[in-house]
């Protein structure tokens, strides 16, 4: 049998009771999936959360620095910038990637109602990520890679840092291989069926990311790694920046798309609603893939990029507004269907009828609400002229702590509140604390981002040890720093609460008593009448590649020739 969303079972299955003695063999809702299949996914999730913990501690140090409290010596770090590198790498590369690997692998199994084709590849992915993280962590802690997560040349890290990054990316590619193989295998048994929506969204996310990651792959494998090994003397800092941002924008989609999977397909199930539209969901996921080549909007102020490339990619950037609004409508409509089914009334009063007492729901609702601020500030960044005010100021971290730092991070925390019981067979520890936790984070980030954004408009540069800045007395940045410090500290407290719940759950001896379920929602519209062409994944991939060749080709054509003039420099 296949537990696809096209055939939601009309009546709830009976839930067998499991006694604590059977805790090691709790049951899950995917036929044929054993704990050996879940194990690499569980460990990859733990790796993600470990990175989040390290990143959160660094975040606290950065927040306190704004209040002129410098604790870097106390934690044996050489500098603010070493801590900042650790924060960025841990949060936006390890935490997000490892979560995506774990979560969308599980979603693929759920969608097809069977294990992934190769357990070996799942294990290899987890090992690749683990070794990659170990190498990068060593490089950073040994103060051999204080290059921030953007690692712009000519700042040059030790080779282990780049190898670590490569292994981390390879862990994601391995997940894609497994998804493709599993799809092909499922196709043999279901030649006529639509690809289940959950599997479709998962594999499109990974194909998107594979294509997007080629920028960084070329940057690191062809330029930075050989250069740091001494095999290549000089690189072109402008061109490697182009390659970085080719990946660096759609990396945002890769952070967000697993969360969209949850918001579109699971969150409605958790509130008793239905997925609004199968077809539009597929279109949104494909739209993100098509909109890969917009990285130049991170380079509006770069001297080497022609205006034609900046304006073309600016227009494409604005197009992202479209799938974002469709998402907003669809997700809110799905939530509303759930709230009304629960007796919700009124134009907006129904929101109160959502199950706010469920931390997995409350966290994602708050993440979604805060994401609207993230989207709006993103439009500011993307506007060529307004960008001149905010580029590289603390407005930018103010913005992305609403997006990746909350829409994604808070959603991951919320999802963990059902995912960890799913993976471990343990009941969630201290549910009320978990509810308080998600609110605490939401309040903290609101204050933090308010401070960062206001400061950015007043000129506070991002990524700067601001209390030691020689020019700080020329400005009146006190309010911005105070809000940033307070908000950041509150966020850290929320992170500590999160880990209390996580460890309390993992080390608890209270086993779950019911079958653990992925809270997949049924669909209102589709998929029977969804355009069949949406399922032609190969065709969409090809169209995306053609688009990339045209847009990136336009830039490279005008930029040519590559201008390798910079030897590696360590300045920390």
């Amino acid at each position, binding site marked *: 049998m296949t537990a696809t969303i096209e055939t939601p079972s009309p009546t709830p299955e009976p839930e067998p009771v499991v006694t604590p003695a059977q805790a090691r063999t709790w049951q899950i809702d995917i036929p044929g999936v054993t704990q050996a299949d879940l194990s690499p996914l569980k460990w990859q999730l733990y790796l993600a959360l470990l990175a989040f913990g390290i990143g959160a501690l660094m975040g606290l140090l950065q927040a306190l620095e704004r209040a002129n409290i410098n604790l870097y010596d106390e934690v044996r770090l050489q500098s603010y910038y070493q801590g900042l590198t650790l924060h960025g790498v841990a949060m936006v590369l390890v935490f997000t990637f490892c979560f995506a690997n774990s979560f969308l692998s599980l979603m693929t199994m759920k969608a097809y109602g069977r294990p992934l084709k190769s357990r070996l590849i799942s294990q290899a992915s987890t090992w690749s990520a683990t070794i990659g993280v170990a190498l990068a962590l060593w490089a950073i802690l040994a103060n051999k890679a204080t290059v921030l997560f953007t690692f712009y040349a000519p700042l040059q890290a030790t080779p282990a840092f780049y190898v670590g990054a490569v292994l981390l990316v390879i862990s994601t590619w391995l997940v894609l291989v497994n998804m493709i193989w599993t799809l092909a295998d499922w196709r043999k048994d279901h030649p006529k069926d639509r690809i289940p929506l959950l599997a479709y969204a998962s594999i499109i996310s990974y194909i998107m990311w594979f294509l997007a990651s080629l920028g960084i792959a070329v940057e690191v494998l062809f330029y930075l790694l050989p250069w740091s090994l001494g095999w290549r003397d000089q690189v072109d800092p402008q061109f490697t920046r182009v390659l970085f941002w080719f990946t660096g924008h759609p990396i945002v989609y890769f952070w967000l798309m697993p969360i969209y999977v949850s918001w579109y397909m699971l969150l409605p199930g958790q509130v008793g609603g239905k997925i609004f539209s199968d077809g539009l969901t597929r279109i949104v996921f494909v739209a993100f893939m098509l909109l890969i080549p917009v990285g130049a909007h991170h380079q509006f102020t770069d001297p080497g990029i022609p205006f034609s490339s900046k304006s073309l990619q600016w227009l494409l950037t604005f197009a992202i507004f479209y799938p974002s609004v469709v998402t907003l409508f*669809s997700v809110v*409509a799905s939530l509303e269907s759930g709230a009304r089914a629960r007796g919700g009334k009124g134009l907006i009063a129904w929101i109160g009828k959502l199950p706010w007492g469920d931390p997995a729901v409350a966290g994602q609702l708050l993440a979604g609400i805060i994401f609207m601020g993230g989207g709006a500030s993103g439009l500011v960044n993307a506007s060529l*002229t307004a960008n001149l005010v905010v580029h590289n100021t603390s407005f930018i971290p103010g913005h992305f702590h609403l997006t990746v730092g909350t829409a994604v991070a808070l959603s991951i925390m919320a999802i963990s509140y059902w995912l960890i019981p799913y993976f471990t067979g343990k009941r969630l520890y201290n549910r009320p604390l978990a509810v308080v936790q998600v609110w605490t984070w939401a309040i903290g980030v609101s204050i933090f981002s308010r401070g960062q954004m206001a400061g950015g408009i007043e000129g506070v540069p991002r990524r700067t040890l601001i209390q030691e800045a020689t020019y700080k007395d020329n400005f009146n940045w006190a309010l911005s720093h105070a809000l940033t410090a307070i908000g950041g500290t509150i966020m850290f407290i929320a992170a500590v609460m999160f880990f209390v719940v996580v460890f309390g759950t993992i080390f608890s001896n209270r086993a779950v008593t019911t079958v653990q379920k992925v809270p997949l929602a049924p669909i209102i519209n589709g998929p029977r009448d969804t355009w069949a062409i949406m399922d032609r994944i190969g065709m969409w991939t090809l169209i995306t590649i053609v688009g990339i060749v045209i847009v990136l080709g336009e830039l490279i054509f005008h930029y040519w020739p590559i201008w390798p003039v910079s030897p590696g420099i360590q300045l920390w």
Partner: protein
Amino acid sequence: MHVDKREKRVMQITVVVLGVAIGALVLSMTASHKSLPEPAGRIRPEDVRVTAPFDNPGVRQVGENEYEVVMIAQAWEWVPNRVEIPAGSHVTFKVTSVDVIHGFRVPDTDLNAMVIPGQITEVDVDFDEARDFTLLCHEYCGIGHHRMGADIVIVEN
């Protein structure tokens, strides 16, 4: 494919909103003559100090109320680290880096650009009234990044 009527409406409105936003931005760029840094030449970092105009950084007058400021960005200072310009001037900054990437930002103005080794950054601005500005580096450039500031002093004409 069935698409909900209300959702169709939202999608149509979105297209209109997008069109207005794009139009407004194009208008604002044309009306305010704001421009982004555009390719202004390339230079090898090791040649910077011996190549005009960077062999002689500083302020020079290039026309009536027109000035050019040539600067070198290096870890962790601007050369020169203080410039004086009369109020009511149109000023073009020409900047390049001899080492790593730096960021060129003067808060309270639209001056905001990257300084990338190998590339020449050219940005311009009108300084209308006498006041002090701070030029700061807004791209991480090593452990002394926060020390990289300079004074831009606009003096009475």
